[in-house]
């Protein structure tokens, strides 16, 4: 049974002037929180214009998020497979994310997002940004393995339908993977 509060102090309500200013700030902030996801592509011309008006605030507070978790739908996942030819001619291979290598799970997820991000960027009409990100990954691998040449492949892993799984298809069945070369880096 709850007892009556016996040891409580309350700060007074702010003065009307303060309340008005705080109310205005709160209203603008809440509007900005709404505009952040609303102004993300694909949006209307109105959404884009309002988004531009709020952009400094959204950028500084990192509020320009779509919150599109698993949307529009959970699709295939993407991994980056790499081949590094070292200065002595040895071929080093690997991929990320890699459960065996990237632990704890949060670190694995960071690497997972890197591969997903380069896939997302690569699906844009202009691939300059995707290429720049891929070059960053390749340069890092070249440094790590003392590599001369780095080839990056984007490996897409499709999810089988439930009927296929019921008929015995495994989630790692080879037919569910496809791969394409996305970047070749030659070290000077």
């Amino acid at each position: 049974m709850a007892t009556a509060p016996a040891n409580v102090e309350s700060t007074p309500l702010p003065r009307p002037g303060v309340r008005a200013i705080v109310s205005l700030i709160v209203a603008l902030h809440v509007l900005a929180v709404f505009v952040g996801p609303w102004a993300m592509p694909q949006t209307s011309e109105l959404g884009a214009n309002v988004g531009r008006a709020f952009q400094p605030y959204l950028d500084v507070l990192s509020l320009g998020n779509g919150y599109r978790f698993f949307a529009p739908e959970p699709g295939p996942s993407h991994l980056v497979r790499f081949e590094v030819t070292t200065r002595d001619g040895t071929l080093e291979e690997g991929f990320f994310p890699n459960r065996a290598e990237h632990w704890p799970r949060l670190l694995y997820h960071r690497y997972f997002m890197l591969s997903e991000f380069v896939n997302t960027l690569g699906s844009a009409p202009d691939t300059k940004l995707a290429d720049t990100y891929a070059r960053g990954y390749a340069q890092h691998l070249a440094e790590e393995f003392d590599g001369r040449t780095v080839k990056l492949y984007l490996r897409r892993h499709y999810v089988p339908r439930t009927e296929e799984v019921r008929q015995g298809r495994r989630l790692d069945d080879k037919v569910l993977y496809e791969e394409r070369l996305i970047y070749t880096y030659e070290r000077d």
Partner: protein
Amino acid sequence: MAGSVSTAVRDWGREVLAGWNRFWFAAADPATLGLIRILGGAMMLYTHAVWSIGLTDFVGSHGLLPAESVKLLQQDTWAFSYLWWIEGSPVLLWTAHIAALIVFAMLTVGLFTRVTSILALIITLSYVQRLPGALFGLDQVNTMLALYLAVGPSGDAFSLDRWLRGRRVGQTLPVRQSWMANLATRLIQVHMCIVYLFAGMAKLVGMAWWDGTALWMAFGNLEYQSLDMTWMAGFPLLINLMTHVTVAWELSYWALVWPRLSRPIVLALAVPLHMGIAICLGMITFGLAMLIGNLAFVPPWLVRAAVDRILAIFGRGRGGELAASGGEKLKKPSRPQVRSSGSTR
């Protein structure tokens, strides 16, 4: 006739204003905010502690995310990160990183909270603005929580600050209700509603959320899987149900989380949804962070009662302010009240 219309409009305006003031400016017990500080601070600490493992793999001139990539992405934006100034020097980078971890630890225990909450916000934003490409929902929730913990008096409950102040004056401090505690909690609540609204609306574009197969596409994704849920392929109707409930829940959250009747159901559903993501899809941190955000809807009296119960289990009884509730058990208020002035001592 015209007079009665204008009276009705004026009355309506007064009610709206009173409702606005009650919603944002009613004095509130900071217990909920204090609990969010502990859990959110711990999540930020863990998130950044994990960055320690791969810090120089991600940032710096030889990192996976060099300046060339990120600055191209962020051109014409106002993104800011202090990491740009120091990442050229591993010594400076590691010094700042360790200092950041100390700040998060201090925020979690509520030490110098006014300062550490603001520093935690700057640090969280700096890592997020420096590492686009390696981010996901967890970082968005961390940023949101850091922002509102810095806005409100998050150290006014369950904190070392309170405990030390109580020791200095030689008595248990009274529970300090304030409109700022209410404001910060309200902002988290409203922000959570917007997050779920857009999360739900974005799913309406995807056919898999309509044909009921979306959750299978998540559970059957080997790269996400942390618990083998392949057996669910044998229960397509269950997958359909879970998919539709997920969308319905996200779309209706903003409306159903406010009424007292539906709030417990909405919050109860958040637990299996986010714990499912946490356990089955390997995103423990994200699932927990979303649940921490949902805590904003748990009333302070319930938080104090729960903390008291937990402390009793651990044999601490109802200790001082640090322990939990400042020695006072607050009754469930019938309705929040706005007072024009003075205290309610």
